[in-house]
Structure formats: structure tokens, C-alpha cells
């Protein structure tokens, strides 16, 4: 700690002018149905992983769209890929594939391959 006893805080803002949407692009190119999510939350309500851990696919999708990928690393690993969400999605999003692609994209992102 510095002599003042506090730090200048980091911003929690989603800054769309500087955020990185490569992961979003990667997913959308390979799974176009990702675009039509209208954030009803049906996936999250039915989610098996969500019953036991704080996994929220609806919110994860939103963060990917905004280019906020930092929380993604933890999130994707929580999904058990059971696919129940896909059965319930009223817009027919291939949610399972979205999660798989997100995991793939974040790996590539970290290796500078995106």
C-alpha cells in the first residue's frame, strides 16, 4: 500500500470503444445463430450447471457481445455441455456450440491466434 492508504480504482465500465470483439466475431462466424439471442434467460433458468454454480449463459452471451472477455475464462469452464438450454431456446440458438466455440476462442485468444 502507498502512503495514502488507498489506490486509484480500476473502472468496471464496459468501454465499448476499447473492448475487443474478436471472440464475438469468432463465434458469430462459426455459429450465426448466436446473433438472434434476445436474452430471454430461458437457458439460464434451465441450466444444470447454474443450479450448483453461478453460471449464467444469458449473461455470458451478453458479455461476449460487448467484448468483455476477462470473466469468460472462468465462465466457460463451468458449463457441462448438457445441452438442455438448446432444447428450450425460443430463438433456436445453438447454445451448446456457442459455449464450445467460446472456450475455443478464448484459448486461441490467449495464444494470440485470433
Amino acid at each position, binding site marked *: 500500500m*502507498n502512503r*495514502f*492508504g*488507498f*489506490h*486509484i*480504482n480500476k*473502472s468496471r465500465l464496459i468501454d465499448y470503444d476499447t473492448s475487443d470483439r474478436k471472440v464475438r466475431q469468432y463465434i458469430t462466424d462459426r455459429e450465426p445463430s448466436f446473433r438472434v439471442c434476445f436474452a430471454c434467460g430461458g437457458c439460464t433458468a434451465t441450466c444444470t450447471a447454474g443450479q450448483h454454480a453461478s453460471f449464467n449463459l444469458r449473461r455470458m452471451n451478453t458479455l461476449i457481445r460487448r467484448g468483455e472477455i476477462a470473466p469468460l475464462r472462468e465462465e466457460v469452464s463451468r458449463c457441462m455441455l448438457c445441452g438442455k438450454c438448446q432444447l428450450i431456446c425460443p430463438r433456436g440458438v445453438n447454445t451448446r456450440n456457442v459455449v464450445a466455440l467460446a472456450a475455443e476462442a478464448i484459448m486461441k485468444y490467449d495464444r494470440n491466434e485470433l
Partner: protein
Amino acid sequence: MQLEGKKRIWAEYQKDIPDDHFFYVRSCIRQTFFAGSEQVFLKIMRDDLGKDVMEDPRHTTCTGIGYHGDVVPFETISTVVARHFALATEAGYKNIAISCVTSFGIYTEILETWKHFPDLLAKTRDNLFKATGREFDLPESIAHASDIIYKFRDELARKAKYQLYDITTGKPLKVVEHIGCHYAKMFPKHGIGGAEFPHVLVGMIESWGGEVIDYPERRHCCGFGFRQYLIQANRGYSISASRKKFESMEPYKPDMIVANCPGCAMFMDRWQYTIKEIDDVTYGGYKTGIPTLTYEEMAGLVMGYDPWEMGLQFHNVQALPLLRKMGIKADPDKRFLAKDGSRLPEPANLINS
């Protein structure tokens, strides 16, 4: 930007400010950190404008920082404010002039609450009588002290010795105006110009020859946040909010910041120093910091008051370059003097010194 649009809004939010006979209440923060500002306000009012301003030494804090720090209940602060109304009533004054923006917000909130809940007014009368034996009439008007200077800005402009004008370049000074949140965000119709485009400082700056900067974070809070500054562990909140503003205004190369709220003026000065210490970053066109003034100090400079007798030297960002631009001759060696006129050691690490 289209000025016509702003003028339309300014025309909508005007309020009646009385012409004379004010009962003045001081501010905790202003009298502590900018005592010279309160004094120069009184001098301008009394000596330059010939107004009657009464100050009763028996008035106190409104307890606003305690109220917004959540240790003082609404019933208590209402009664403390009612006591000030009682003092004004006893002295025969109907117009309250308020030094502090937090107080101004609170006075407004209390009067509005009493309007909607008359039983709370009755209860407050009761409480005040029980506690002090005092009774009060509601004031006819309440104004923030900056409202009053705004009202007389053109008269002051006619009597001014200096302008907000850079004599070295022949251009108006670029001024960032910062309005304390509690001035109009809670009750837009009680602020000159409303909440989104307040005119109270813009009017002064333009009347006195300056040019106002409208930058994206203009309306953002300075970050005081009451408990967010009072407690050391929380101060990251406070400094971060000010930094956000500095970064947003920096590209416009402002010559100074002026605020009508004592807290904002204090923080926007102090945080420039702290940010320099923590991150080695200074703001201002030439990395010299941006002098941050109270509106009384700005008015005082224009009216030709001695900057050191207003206390401009007690800011971390020193105003010497600004004074040079305005053509004000002020001896830097006379900034820090003892009562007997002897020189005190100059503080180290001031910005712009």
C-alpha cells in the same frame, strides 16, 4: 454545438433571487479549506455591491456531511436547519444565502418535503421549540451564494479590474465549470439553468470574458461521495471519479477549473496532487496542473482582490501562470506570510510553484 439550444434551456430555468438583505450561512468545508472565499464573497456583496448581508455567529453547520454520511437522521437535520430559519426570523431576514452546495441541496430537500408532508413541518416546529424554545417563519427565498453573484454578474463586470482573458494571446481563458451535484440534480427547477446545462457559473464566466468548455464528463460528480472520502479505505472511489473528469477535460486545454461547491473545488485541487504522487501524471496543457478555483476566488480576481488575501496560495495547484495570463501582478514571495508579515517557508511539491 448549437448555442441557441442551450439558451432556450437557460431561459426556462430562471429563478427569482432577491435583490438585497441576506442571512448568510457558512459551509463546513468552505470555511475550513477556503475561508478566504467566504470572506471575499462578503466583501464583494457589501463593498462592491452595497448589499446588506447578515451573519449571526450563533449559526452552525447544517449537519449535512453527517446527514449524507448517514449518522444524522432527517428529523435532526430538519430541526437544525429550522433553527437557522429561527435565527433569520429573529433578526428579521427572509432571504437565506447559503455558502455550501450540500447545505443548499438539503435546505431545498427539507422545504420540498415540508411542502408535501405538512405534518413533518409541524413536527419540526414542535421539536425545535422543545429543544431550543425557538420558533420560525419559513424563509421567502433560499439561494446558493453563487446564485447571488450570478444575479449581479453584469454589474460586477462593469466594475471589474480584470477579465478572464489571456493578455499574452489575446484570447478568452478556457474555463471548465463544475457544478456541485446537489445544486440542481435533485431539484432541477431550483438551479439556474437546470440540472443538465446549469447556467450559474457559465453566466459568470461569459460575463467576465471567459470561454466555457463543454467536455463529455462535464456533469459527472467530483467523487466526494461523503463516506467515500471520509473513510481512508474508500478514497479510491473519490480520486477515480475526479481523474475521470480530468482525463475528459484535458484535451480541451483548460486554463482553470471553477466550482460552486466547496467540496468539488477542494477535491479537484487535492486529487491533482495525489494523482501526480501515485501515477506521476499531471494535467493541463503544459503538464502544469489545472488551477482549481472557487467561484468566489474567480470573482475576486476579476474584481481586483489580492489573490493571496483570498488564499489562492493554499491550493496544491498554484495559480501563478493563470495570474500572469490575466495580467494580475502578484508577488509569489508574498504568498506564505506569518501574521507579523515575515515569510514562512514555502511548502515543497506544490504544482506550478
